[in-house]
């Protein structure tokens, strides 16, 4: 016997213990595809909502380099507003989503928004004479300030803005990295901040710090991957350009140095012409790859597109000595995509298949209506197949087993398939040939003849 449970659904009206409700709200929001700003808003909302921790106002400072900058201040602007808001929010039926929406409204309201007041506040975290609130962040200490006006460590400008005697600073950090600080107060209810409030606020702080840290790492990782891809691109393009340039330069110098050597003149010029063509190929492939910009997929008949590719001269030349079998189902529905990109994708795969197949081998292009909503195009060859290590990297940019070419072809095909809502699969073993399956969405509902 197995009982299945849903993950806790966040609910501000929950009869669960306050702490559990709070944890639930925050951890749920981290699962959502919200932006970091939205998730931080959820944390601030949890800290200021009645069924959360219940502070009146919450202020968020975030680090940027070694600076701590005022960013968001959530809460009513006056005691009157507080009363109205709390009445509205305590109406039965008001839940999590409504409160978040309400708070978002508070933040986006330009004039008179609390956040506008703290945005000019910027503190250095590396300076020697730290003041509150920066001190809490820099030292990673929770600070409960009881008599702010008599406390020399509180920054006067900050004190003027917050205007209360008692407030709590919760540092946000993870793995030695300071992410910010949250400042909480009870400006309207004048309730004393109790140890239990401090405990709950610290829990929120730990979660927020970890969340911000993970998000920062994630963004850094994406950035590094981009830079790495760019670096690889630069290396490969350089390589692809340098060989032709070496030859163009060398054969030109020969002509310049021995202008009377008639035998070399035509030969050298022919080589130079050919190498210039190679430079153009590199540019073509690069631009072509960068340009996958598909409009909305449209229904089209794939048969004429496949025929057009098979009839093109470059494919015809490559097919010499290889048996090319075409097997397209009679009653094939239209598929969703872009006919031009479809043709280019098929050409790419056919080119690869023909290049991998020895003389006397066979390449098959087959299409079937399968799985109700999918039309599958199979391109199979009896060529040399791939080792697992090659298969693994197949769709990586700038990966190629050919001496010529940028290694962008299959990535292009993959991008085409993704942009029309389809997918690509590959089966291959060394010595066994390769099979590519392209799944296109059928433009008609499930097949009628079952």
């Amino acid at each position, binding site marked *: 016997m197995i009982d299945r449970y849903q993950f806790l659904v966040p609910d501000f009206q929950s009869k669960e213990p306050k702490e559990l409700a709070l944890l639930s709200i925050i951890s749920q929001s981290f699962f959502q595809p919200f932006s970091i700003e939205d998730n931080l808003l959820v944390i601030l909302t949890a800290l200021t909502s009645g069924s959360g921790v219940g502070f009146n106002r919450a202020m968020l400072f975030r680090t940027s380099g070694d600076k701590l900058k005022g960013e968001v201040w959530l809460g009513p602007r006056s005691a009157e507003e507080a009363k109205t808001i709390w009445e509205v929010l305590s109406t039965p039926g008001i839940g999590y989503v409504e409160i978040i929406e309400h708070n978002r409204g508070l933040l986006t309201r330009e004039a008179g928004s609390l956040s506008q007041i703290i945005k000019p506040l910027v503190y250095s975290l590396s300076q020697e004479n730290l003041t509150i609130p920066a001190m809490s962040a820099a030292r990673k200490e929770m600070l409960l300030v009881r008599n702010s006006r008599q406390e020399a460590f509180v920054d006067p400008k900050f004190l003027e803005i917050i205007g209360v005697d008692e407030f709590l600073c919760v540092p946000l950090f993870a793995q030695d990295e300071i992410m910010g600080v949250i400042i909480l107060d009870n400006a309207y209810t004048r309730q004393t901040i109790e140890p239990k409030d401090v405990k709950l606020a610290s829990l929120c702080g730990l979660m927020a710090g970890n969340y911000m840290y993970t998000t920062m790492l994630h963004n850094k990782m994406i950035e590094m991957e981009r830079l790495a891809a760019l670096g690889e691109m630069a290396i490969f393009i*350089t390589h692809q350009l340098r*060989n032709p340039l*070496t030859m163009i330069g060398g*054969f030109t110098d020969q002509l310049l140095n021995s202008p009377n050597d008639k035998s070399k003149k035509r030969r050298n010029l022919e080589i130079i012409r050919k190498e210039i063509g190679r430079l153009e190929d590199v540019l073509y492939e690069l631009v072509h790859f960068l340009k996958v910009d598909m409009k909305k997929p449209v229904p089209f008949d794939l048969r004429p597109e496949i025929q057009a590719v098979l009839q093109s001269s470059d494919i015809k030349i490559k097919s010499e000595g290889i048996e090319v079998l075409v097997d397209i189902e009679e009653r094939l529905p239209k598929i969703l995509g872009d006919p031009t990109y479809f043709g280019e994708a098929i050409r790419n795969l056919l080119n690869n298949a023909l290049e991998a197949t020895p003389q006397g081998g066979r390449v098959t292009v087959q299409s079937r209506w399968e799985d109700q909503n999918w039309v599958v195009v199979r391109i199979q060859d009896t060529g040399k197949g791939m080792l697992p290590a090659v298969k693994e990297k197949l769709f990586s940019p700038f990966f190629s087993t050919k001496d010529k070419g940028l290694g962008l072809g299959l990535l292009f095909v993959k991008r085409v398939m993704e942009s029309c809502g389809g997918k690509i699969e590959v089966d291959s073993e060394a010595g066994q040939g390769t099979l590519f399956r392209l799944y296109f969405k059928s433009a008609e509902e499930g097949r009628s003849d079952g």
Partner: protein
Amino acid sequence: MKKILIVEDEEALCLLYKEELSQEGYDVMTVYDAEQALEVLNRERFDLIITDIRMPGRDGVELITQILGLRKDIPIIINTAYQSYKEDFMTWAADAYVVKSSSLQELKSKIKELLNQ
């Protein structure tokens, strides 16, 4: 006459190097891959090897390692389109690393230097 072996898979580049270096007074032999190079090296003696490296991780580098193991006493120039692997190779594999260029001057002067001419 000093004998030079060139390992280069671009046919036209082999032709260019052969003509240019022959004119400089060298006896030049060209092969298109490292396997052929190994075969030739087992038969004949050379005073210098000029070789390309292909992409790291592919057969080229492995076979070049074998060439190097076979003839440690012969000076080797790596001549390649890849600029960024210089450090990787200079430490263990080659006496000079010349990036392919539209001018053959650097390659020619490195050859002279390594052959003490």
